[in-house]
C-alpha cells in the first residue's frame, strides 16, 4: 500500500522541504512504497531514472543476441519460442520505459542517451551468439542471473518499478525454463549438439557472473541504493546465490562449468569459485567488448533510418487531431 500522498502540485500550502524529507525518510524506514505523485529527493529520482533506464536499455539491446537466430532457428517450435521471447523483451522494455516516465523521464530522450553512449546497458549483451546453443545458455544463465538480480527488486521502494519487476520476473523465469529445456534437448541429441552446449557454457559462464556488477568493495552507487531500498542485496551476495543455484543445474544438464576452483565449501554449504577477470569486465563495460559497436549502431540505425516513419505518424495525428 502506498503512503498518504503529499503532492507538490496539489497541496495548497507547500510544506517545507524538511517536512517532505522527513515524510519520505519515514516511508523508506517503514518499508512502505514511494509512489509517482509522492515527494522524493531529487537524487532518489535521478538515481531511479538511471537504474530503470539502464534496465530498459538492457531489455532492448538484449533482444539482439538471440534475435540474430530468429531467421535460422532449427525447428518451427524453437522459432516460435524465440520469437515470443524477443517479443517479451520488447514488452519489458516498453513497460520499464513507462515506469521511468512516471518519474518525469522521456523515452525518446532515454533512447538518445543510450545511442550516444551516455547511459549504459548490461554488458552481457556485448558478447556474440556463435551457435544455437547460445540461445539456450542465454535463457538458462543470462535470464537466470537477471532473475537473481531482479527478484529482490520486486521489493524496491519505488512502487511502479517494484510492480513492473514482479511481472517481468515471472516472464523471465519462463525464459529461463525454456532455455534450460533447449539445452536438455540438445544434450540428449548428437555429439555435435553436446559439444555446442559445452562450448556455449564455456563462453557465457564468466560473463554471467559479471552481471552482478563489481565486487562490493568497488561498487560506487551501491551503498546509497541499499539505504534507499532501491537495491536490496549486495552484488557479491547475489552472485553467490546465483552460483549456488547454477552448480547443481549444470550437473543435472551434464555440462562442466569452466572454473577449476569451483568447489563446495563443506562448512558454509556454499560454492567457492575462482577469481573473476575484472579487467575484461572493465573493457567490455567501457565499450570495447566484442559487439558493443554493433549493438548500439543497430539501435541508432533503427532510430535514424526510420525517423521518417515516426514523422509521418506525428504529421498524420496532427492533421486528424480535431
Amino acid at each position, binding site marked *: 500500500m502506498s503512503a498518504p500522498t503529499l503532492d507538490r502540485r496539489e497541496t495548497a500550502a507547500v510544506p517545507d522541504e524538511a517536512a517532505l524529507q522527513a515524510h519520505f525518510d519515514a516511508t523508506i524506514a517503514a518499508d512502505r512504497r514511494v509512489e509517482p505523485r509522492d515527494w522524493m529527493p531529487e537524487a532518489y529520482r535521478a538515481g531511479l531514472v538511471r537504474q530503470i533506464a539502464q534496465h530498459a536499455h538492457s531489455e532492448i539491446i538484449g533482444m539482439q543476441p538471440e534475435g540474430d537466430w530468429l531467421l535460422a532457428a532449427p525447428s518451427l517450435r524453437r522459432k516460435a519460442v524465440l520469437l515470443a521471447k*524477443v517479443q517479451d523483451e*520488447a514488452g519489458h522494455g516498453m513497460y520499464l520505459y513507462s515506469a521511468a516516465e512516471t518519474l518525469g523521464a522521456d523515452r525518446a530522450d532515454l533512447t538518445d542517451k543510450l545511442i550516444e553512449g551516455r547511459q549504459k546497458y548490461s554488458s552481457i549483451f556485448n558478447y556474440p551468439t556463435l551457435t544455437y546453443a547460445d540461445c539456450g545458455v542465454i535463457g538458462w544463465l543470462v535470464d537466470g542471473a537477471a532473475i537473481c538480480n531482479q527478484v529482490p527488486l520486486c521489493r524496491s521502494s519505488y512502487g511502479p518499478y517494484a510492480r513492473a519487476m514482479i511481472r517481468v520476473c515471472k516472464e523471465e523465469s519462463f525464459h529461463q525454463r525454456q532455455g534450460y529445456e533447449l539445452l*536438455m534437448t540438445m544434450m540428449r541429441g548428437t555429439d555435435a549438439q553436446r559439444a555446442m552446449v559445452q562450448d556455449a557454457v564455456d563462453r557465457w559462464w564468466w560473463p554471467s557472473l559479471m552481471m552482478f556488477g563489481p565486487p562490493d568493495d568497488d561498487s560506487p552507487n551501491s551503498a546509497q541504493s541499499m539505504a534507499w531500498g532501491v537495491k536490496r542485496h549486495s552484488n557479491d551476495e547475489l552472485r553467490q546465490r546465483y552460483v549456488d543455484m547454477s552448480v547443481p543445474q549444470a550437473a543435472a544438464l551434464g555440462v562442466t562449468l569452466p572454473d577449476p576452483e569451483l568447489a563446495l565449501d563443506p562448512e558454509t554449504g556454499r560454492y567457492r569459485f575462482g577469481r573473476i577477470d575484472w579487467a575484461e569486465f572493465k573493457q567490455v563495460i567501457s565499450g570495447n567488448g566484442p559487439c558493443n559497436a554493433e549493438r548500439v549502431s543497430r539501435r541508432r540505425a533503427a532510430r535514424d533510418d526510420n525517423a521518417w516513419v515516426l514523422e509521418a505518424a506525428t504529421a498524420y495525428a496532427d492533421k486528424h487531431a480535431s
Partner: protein
Amino acid sequence: MHEETVYDALDTAHGGEGQWAFGTGFDDPLAGVDTTVPDGVEPADLGAYCLMLGDDALVLCQRLTEWATRAPELEEEVAIANCGLDLLGQARLLLARAGSAGVLGRSRRHATDSIPDEDALAYFRDPDEFVHHHLVEADGGDFAQTMVRLLVASTFRLALFAQLRESRDPVLSAIAAKGVPELTYHRDHAARWVLRLGDGTSESHRRAQAGVEAVWPLLADLFTATEVETRLTAAGVAVDPAGVREEVRGVLTTVLERATLTVPAWPAERPSPGRAGEHTGELAPLLATLQGLAREHPAATW
C-alpha cells in the same frame, strides 16, 4: 510475491523429476487432434492445399521477422513479432495437417524420423517444392513497402480464412476460425500504417506510393484457382480465390483512397507461378537462412 519462493521454485524446477526436461514428444502442434480426412476428399489434394496456405504464412513470417530488432519504434517491434508469431502458428498447424494427410514431398529423403512433419516440410523441402505466392517472398523493401505488402497479404488471407471457417475439413475449419481474429489484427494494423504513411509527410507519401507500385503487380497471382483448389472447392473443403477478389479489391481501394494514395490499374491476372513451385531468385537465399542450421544437423532434435 515472496522472493524466497521464487528462488525455491527455480531450484526445485530443476530437481530430480526433470520437470524442465519435457521433450520432443510434445512437439506436434496437432497432438491429439482427429486428423481423419473427410469422405470424398483426396488426401493428396488436402495436403497440397494446406502446403499452399502454410507456405504463404511461413515465408511471410520469415520476411516480417527480418524487422525484429530493427523496427521504427518499440511498439512496432512488438506488433511485428506478434504478427510473425501468429503466422508461424498458422504455418505450423497447416504443415502438420499436410503431413498428417501424407503429403511430405521429397523432404523425408533428408529428414530423419526424429524430425516432426512440420519441420521436415519447412526445413527439408527444396525451393521448387514450396508453393507460396510471389507476393510473400519478395524482398520487403522499406517500412512502407513492408506495410503495404502486409496489408495486401493479410487482406487476401483474411478473406480466404473467413470463408474457410465453413470448410468440410474440421481441422482446416478450426485453423481458419482460430486465424480470423489474428488476421483481422494484422490487416487493420497494416491498414492504419498505410493511412499514416500515405497521409503523413511528403516523404512518407512518396515511399508509400512506391510501396504500392512495387507490391501491386503481385496481386496478379492471387485469384486464379489451381486444379487442386478447384477440386477441393467443389468438395466443400477449400475456397475459390476468385471468390474473394472483389472483397480484397474493395478493402485495398478503401484504404489507399483514404490514405490519399493513387490506386494503380488492376494487374492482368495469371495462374500463380508460386503455387506451381516456380519462384524468383529471392527464395533461395531466404530458404538458405531458414534451413541452413537444420540441414547441417539432419539427425539432431531441437
